[in-house]
């Protein structure tokens, strides 16, 4: 079949989008709608599964198959969808409360199993839909409705959690760069396995500007390091800063200072099986690493299930359930 030609408009449903004006969710929605037509997949084969939260309204706005499910459970539902029909392109839409708190268990297990689907994690470090409580990714000290004197719970870093669960694909993107985001979504879908994309999503109502120090256009050149496989990890307004390993620590150096040349800068290897460096990169705060931090090919759950089933089908003596019913020890009563 010819690759269907769609525009982003074909991916939008007729439902009015109801996020707060200025919310980064709009950027993510539009980026997904722009990414899908680039994939050469028929529209009826896209399935979006979400949990509960602001972000989880997402499927209603997509003109694809979708389910707005229950809090935290989208990865489990999506796993069922994908196992039932491996031909579908399955997307999980979730937030930091949905996937790191109530659904933490499902998040780590879907990643561990390497189910071939894409998880877009809208990380705004706050509960939006329930109107402003601290979330599992909120920083210590954050004053919210449920922490008027400051949050006392240390946060999860989604990247660390994903790496700990043996993520094969992890990427991060700021919520205000639609072009880069679209490209990342395309890459994530093309990756065979679980792809986790953390979006630093600004909630204008309850946690406004929380990522400002990283995402604001005035600071981002120095605050963000965009990694690319096979390229040296260089960043900065003047493209003269880079990362080196100093013992077991990543360190920022300046090219041209203290005898440092471009050759001294670490080259990003997203495909390295050992995730030690990927974990360090995902945890780094200055600069905050963006782009595909890890992308390692591996067998998926679906691959294993299919291979095993094919093997069993080859050797079985059961062609239909009737054979099973009549198998083993039976006897005749006259």
């Amino acid at each position, binding site marked *: 079949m010819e690759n269907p030609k769609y525009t982003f408009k074909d991916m939008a449903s007729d439902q009015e989008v109801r996020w707060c004006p200025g919310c980064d969710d709009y950027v993510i929605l539009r980026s997904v709608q722009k990414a899908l037509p680039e994939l050469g997949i028929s529209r009826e084969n896209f399935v979006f599964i979400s949990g509960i939260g602001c972000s989880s309204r997402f499927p209603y706005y997509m003109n694809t198959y979708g389910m707005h499910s229950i809090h935290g459970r989208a990865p489990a539902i999506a796993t069922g969808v994908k196992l*039932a029909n491996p031909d579908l392109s399955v997307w999980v839409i979730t937030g930091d409360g949905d996937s790191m708190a109530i659904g933490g268990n499902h998040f780590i297990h879907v990643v561990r199993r390497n189910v071939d689907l894409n998880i877009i994690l809208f990380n705004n470090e706050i509960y939006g839909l329930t109107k402003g409580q601290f979330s599992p990714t909120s920083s210590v000290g954050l004053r919210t409705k449920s922490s008027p004197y400051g949050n006392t719970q240390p946060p999860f870093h989604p990247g660390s959690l994903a790496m700990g669960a043996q993520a094969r694909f992890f990427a991060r993107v700021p919520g205000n760069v639609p072009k880069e985001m679209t490209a990342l979504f395309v890459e994530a879908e093309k990756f065979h396995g679980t792809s986790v994309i953390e979006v630093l999503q600004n909630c204008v109502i309850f946690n406004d500007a929380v990522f400002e120090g990283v995402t604001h256009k005035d600071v981002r050149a120095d605050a963000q390091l965009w990694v690319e496989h096979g390229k040296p990890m260089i960043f900065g307004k003047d493209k003269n800063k880079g990362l080196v390993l100093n013992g077991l620590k990543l360190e920022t150096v300046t090219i041209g200072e203290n005898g440092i040349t471009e050759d001294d800068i670490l080259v990003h290897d997203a495909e390295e099986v050992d995730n030690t460096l990927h974990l360090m990169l995902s945890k780094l705060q200055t600069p905050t690493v963006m782009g595909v931090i890890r992308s390692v090919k591996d067998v998926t759950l679906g691959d294993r299930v299919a291979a095993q089933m094919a093997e069993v089908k080859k050797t079985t003596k059961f062609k239909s359930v009737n054979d099973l019913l009549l198998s083993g020890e039976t006897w005749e*009563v006259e």
Partner: protein
Amino acid sequence: MAVDDIKTAPRNNGEPEALERVVILFVGDSGDGMQLTGTQFSDTSAMLGNDIATFPNYPAEIRAPQGSVYGVSGFQVHIGQTEISTPGDDVDVLVAMNPAALKTNLHSVSPGKTLIIDTDSFTKKNLGKAGYESNPLEDDSLDNYKVIQAPITTLTRTSILDIGLDNKSMNRSKNMFALGMVFWMFSRPLTHTERFLENKFKNKPKVIEANKRALKAGYNYADTLELLPSAHTILPAKMKPGKYRIIMGNSATAWGFLAAAEKANLDLFLGSYPITPASDILHELSKHQHFGVKTFQAEDEIAGVCSAIGAAFAGDLAITTTSGPGLALKGEAVGLALITELPMVIVDVQRGGPSTGLPTKTEQSDLLQSLHGRNGDSPVIVIAASTPANCFDYAYEASRLALEHMTPVILLTDGYIANGSEPWKIKEMSELSPITPRLEKAENAEDWQVYARDTEKLARNWAIPGTPGLEHRIGGLEKDKLTGNVSYVPDNHEYMVKIRAEKIKRVENYIPDLTIEGAQEGDLLVVGWGGTYGSLHTAVNYMNETGDKIGYVHFNYLNPMPKNTEEVFKKFKKILVCELNMGQLAAVLRSRYPEYNFLKYNKIQGLPFTIMELVQKFNQMLGNEPIII
């Protein structure tokens, strides 16, 4: 008078004495292999044409301390040449492999019956662990029984000494020795068990040899031993002609789903988390990938049901299996399946509750949870199997109802029928009614609406991902009655709540009426549901054979109930609802049929009803003199 008395037929010259039925209870340590021993005895008997019913009774601890009373594992088997519906009240032969086994089970053996005891295990230490102050084999406490004392452990070891196994492995064969003795007592051939051993230990020739020899040695020992009462036999039961096999409840449930998936031309998907006593369904289905079955062992109960919801959305016959506490965890997700109106089956193999309760014991205490254990007004179909073999039929039926009515269905079984086994007249695929899933077609895309319903069943159609033109979104928020889009319109919500209820109610048009067993009208109607059928049926039969005519109805459909339910209640003066709980069905009936007086008879001991206690209760209800046993 005892209902389950062995009735002896006249002796044939020299032939084994023919008995109408017999109850044997094998009991030992949980590591002694009693479940296997009991299964071998019942399977062999079934193949000789006896009707059977079995009752495994084992502890929750996998290997409780050896010799302790809480590590005792038992397997009761009732075989007969007449119809057998329960594992029997009264044990005729108790095989006790250690003092703890004797101590915990002697109460179910009436005086005059037979005890087979492994004397080797009656050491001071074991007696102490069982809480015996003096050795019952030496004092007079067993005077009223026929006691067969055999040094089973020693005899087993002697018979297999030269094979070259270590002591521990040798001891493992002692259950086969005991089985050999019982085989002789009831004139059973060894061939079935020998074949079984050869298969089970395919790559361990020494183990096969040891077990086969121990079996034979036990058989010969009994044959030559003067202490043993004469051999008996149980003639084949009169059963309907056809092809039979032995089936366990949990396997029957699994097979019912396999059959339904094939009939509906769908793949079967099971999302499940291990839990006693439901895990055997997961085990069984995971063997059958050749039929395209996908079993997904999830990270928890919630993921089990949610993965099934995903598979249901994507077009599989989706099921999840669990037991009481697991159903509690799945509650929210079942609500999602019900508001999205997706077809799926949730199996609850009930066990003793609340909380972790009695994991390995039986109870019927999840009825109210199944009917009401969700937020909101959230009706689902609830049905219950009533015997090990008809778990097949009700798993099939649950699938049919789910697929044709587009709703989650809760199927209740319980630990008693799930682990029990009985002969099953095999149903072939051609005998099963058709199942027609309501798949929506791409060519209807033009006028299709997500929540459009057919006028009779009120079910919507199933539009599965991958079908061009039917792209749509569903979810847990209230739906517009036609488009399925999110709707907060007050009237729409009321309409949807009512139509979801009406949809389930109309299922009554697609299920069979109740049939009354025994008296069709009169003084007393006995009412039961689920796994108590065997006991209730036997007890009611007994009443009707011995004079008092009473009626009996058994509910397999709990929501909705059969259409003639009220008509049945009208015909009797008293209605007695018998349940293994505090009275959950009685509570439901009281609220649905408030003009009738539902009396209750309840047992909450983790055990099935005995026939005797039911008969006593029925007599009391009829104002008869209590029966002296």
